[in-house]
């Protein structure tokens, strides 16, 4: 089965799977050097890592990139010029209020469908799409349900594994010993300082942050990164699903994922407020990549709007060389909160 790689949360995996293809959400390694990009200043490290991952990807049958940010939009140009994989650029509107932009997003899904068919996919029936959507929805629900029984890192890794491999892989806690171990973990760790991590997507090595926080006496109770809970679509509205599953899918993704690229991004703050209150968060780790304007500009806004201590950690995408500095800063932040 051909694999379709992507990274943006607005690409619905269900839609790809329904075409008989294997969706796989890429999570890049720490910054690699890509062609002559290596020496170019100003490129978001995640974009750089994504380009590296896609160009070296030998399992991929095609790649889907979206327009949510300018750098990714331009990364598409590099991918089409430097990489053999067929590539699709999906228009994801930044505004969200009008029916016209919602329709534009749904239209883009249809166009993506035609692309997938050109590259080995089969047009799905409504029933087939609905069945896959339900399967994904159940898997997602089981991941959410497991949150309190898992360490923050395991929880984040399950979300990542779900993105990479789909429902078959990861999400349901079938393994009894794992449930047992994690229940004990949860019991042992009731005296932690609850934190949120907010920002763009994480790269593979950055999951160490969850451990660093735990080692300093905290716990990430809200993973509001793009690769965490914030990047998961809304629960499916199953009523009448089989009549028009594509519209339901569009609503769950386009209407359900709050992102920094939205204009205005007021609903992102509604989401933050709700989750931060619900999880009794006491401090925020704000994780951003250097040269990412979208998240960088949001730091001041977050401080204006959310009344919680914020630790700003910028990264050039090389976690290993930054680990000590990151750990030191998180340690100091935790001391302040304890």
């Amino acid at each position, binding site marked *: 089965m051909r694999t379709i790689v992507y990274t943006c949360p607005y690409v619905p995996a269900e839609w790809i799977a329904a075409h008989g293809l294997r969706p796989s959400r890429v999570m890049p390694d720490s910054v690699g050097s890509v062609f002559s990009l290596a020496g*170019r200043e100003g490129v978001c490290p995640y974009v750089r890592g994504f380009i590296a991952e896609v160009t070296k990807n030998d399992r991929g049958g095609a790649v889907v990139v979206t327009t949510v940010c300018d750098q990714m939009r331009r990364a598409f140009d590099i991918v*089409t010029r430097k990489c053999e994989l067929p590539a699709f650029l999906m228009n994801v509107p930044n505004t969200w209020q009008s029916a*016209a932009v919602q329709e534009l997003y749904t239209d883009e899904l249809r166009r993506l469908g035609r692309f997938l068919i050109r590259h080995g996919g089969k047009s799905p029936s409504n029933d087939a799409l609905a069945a896959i959507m339900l399967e994904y929805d159940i898997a997602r629900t089981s991941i959410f349900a497991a949150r309190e029984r898992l360490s923050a890192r395991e929880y984040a890794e399950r979300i990542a594994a779900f993105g990479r491999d789909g429902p078959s892989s990861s999400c349901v806690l079938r393994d009894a010993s794992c449930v047992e171990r994690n229940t004990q973990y949860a019991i042992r760790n009731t005296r932690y300082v609850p934190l949120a991590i907010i920002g763009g997507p994480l790269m593979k090595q950055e999951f160490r942050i969850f451990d660093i926080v735990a080692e300093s006496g905290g716990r990430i109770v809200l993973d509001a990164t793009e690769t965490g809970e914030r990047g998961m679509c809304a629960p499916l509205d199953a009523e009448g699903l089989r009549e028009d599953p594509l519209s339901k899918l569009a609503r769950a993704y386009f209407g359900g994922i709050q992102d920094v690229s939205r204009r205005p991004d007021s609903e992102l703050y509604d989401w933050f407020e709700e989750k931060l209150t619900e999880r009794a968060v006491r401090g925020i780790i704000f994780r951003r990549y250097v040269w990412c304007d979208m998240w960088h500009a949001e730091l001041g806004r977050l401080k204006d709007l959310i009344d919680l201590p914020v630790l700003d950690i910028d990264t050039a995408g090389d976690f290993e060389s930054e680990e000590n500095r990151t750990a030191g800063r998180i340690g100091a932040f935790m001391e302040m909160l304890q």
Partner: protein
Amino acid sequence: MSDAPKRITLEQWDLQYEKLRVAGAFQPYYGGPLSRHLKDGDQRLLKLRYDNSAAALRLWNFLLTEKNRLREARAEGKRIVGTMKDLGTVPVMAYSFDNVVAFYPDGAWWIPCVMELSAGLLEIADSLGIDESFCPVRAMLGAFVTGAHFPLPDMLVCSVGATCDDFSAIAQRLEGLGHPILWWEMPHRRNPEPDETAVTLPGGFSAPKRQVEFVQSELERVKTALEELTGERLDAEKLSAGIKKANQVRRCLSELRHLAFTAQRCPVPALEMLIAEMLAIHFCSDRRETIAVLGELLDEAKARVQASVGVLDVDAARIFWVNPVADLQVMNLLEDCGGRICGTEYLFSHALDEIPEDLPPLEALAQMALADPMAGSSIDRAERICADIKMYGAEAVLISRIPGASHCALEGQVIAEIVQEKFDIPVVEIEVPPVTDSMRPTVRTRLEALVETVEARRRVAPK
């Protein structure tokens, strides 16, 4: 035609002004000696070289008095609309109303240069968390906070979607500071698929018809908001009349560019040409005067070409310039180094293309918006640059990198590669901050090297 064309200093301009005044040369209401703008803090003027024609004086005075015009418009009860990011679309609509003046708050981009960082706008942006990792447009935030550089608009309109991250992020910060924004969606322009109806846009790019329809619906939303603001209905007839006026500006610029880039001796210096091109995007807050200013500059250029005179050597190296410079002085520097501009893509070529007059006017504007070189792929933009390199016979390309700009890092590489694949001409990329003084020797060396490379290539393959 004025005196023998040459580039002169601000001090020399004051003498020249006196001469013109005594000779009874026409002065518009905003006329006067150039050096008076120093009082506004425009210190960079002291370091620039200017064309010595009366037409250039009028152009500069027009540019440097925009703030006053906006204040007068407010006093007259006109509605002031800040149009952000679309560079040349919404202003055409706005100026079709009787009682609206539109301007680009984005133009604050140049304040740090013109005022040599003395306005403190970048410091204000810093304090709001928008530091030097963003493009100089961050000065706009400071301008809104101080209110010293333009009156606060009655309405702000901003396009998002296929735009840069810098502006989108900064505009969101601005809205968070209490300046409501009407956002409209500009989708990334894509090529039509085989089963889609294709539309050829002004300037030559193509897009699927459904994208044009979508943009048209977004512009309809903007139009409705402007109608509500003004209490005036904008019917097709009025909008068509506005498009015709905009096209007058565009036709004039097209002729001017053609003369400036192709005449044997360059009739208008690079700096004045850059400013002239900028007038197309929002008419510097006075459309009628823009037409007059450009008309006079075009007449001067024609007279010079006819007389075979110009401001630069005949054999100046022919350079195509990509992106506007944050420091205006660099345009002078290129000429000091022996270069001349033969083609430009300052991020808004679409604002120079004529808007179709044979279509329903809103559809025509939608086509124009989609023709924005920044709304499509860097590959498209590079292709347009290549077409212009060929048309104007440029011998080298200079990509001026905008510090912090989200598009520059990746697109510069794509443009450079495509140009070299097509033409085998030298391409240089130079980052230009708002004030280059400390790095002037480096910039100069690189410009000189580019000019020398062109000269060396001519010796190997004489034309």
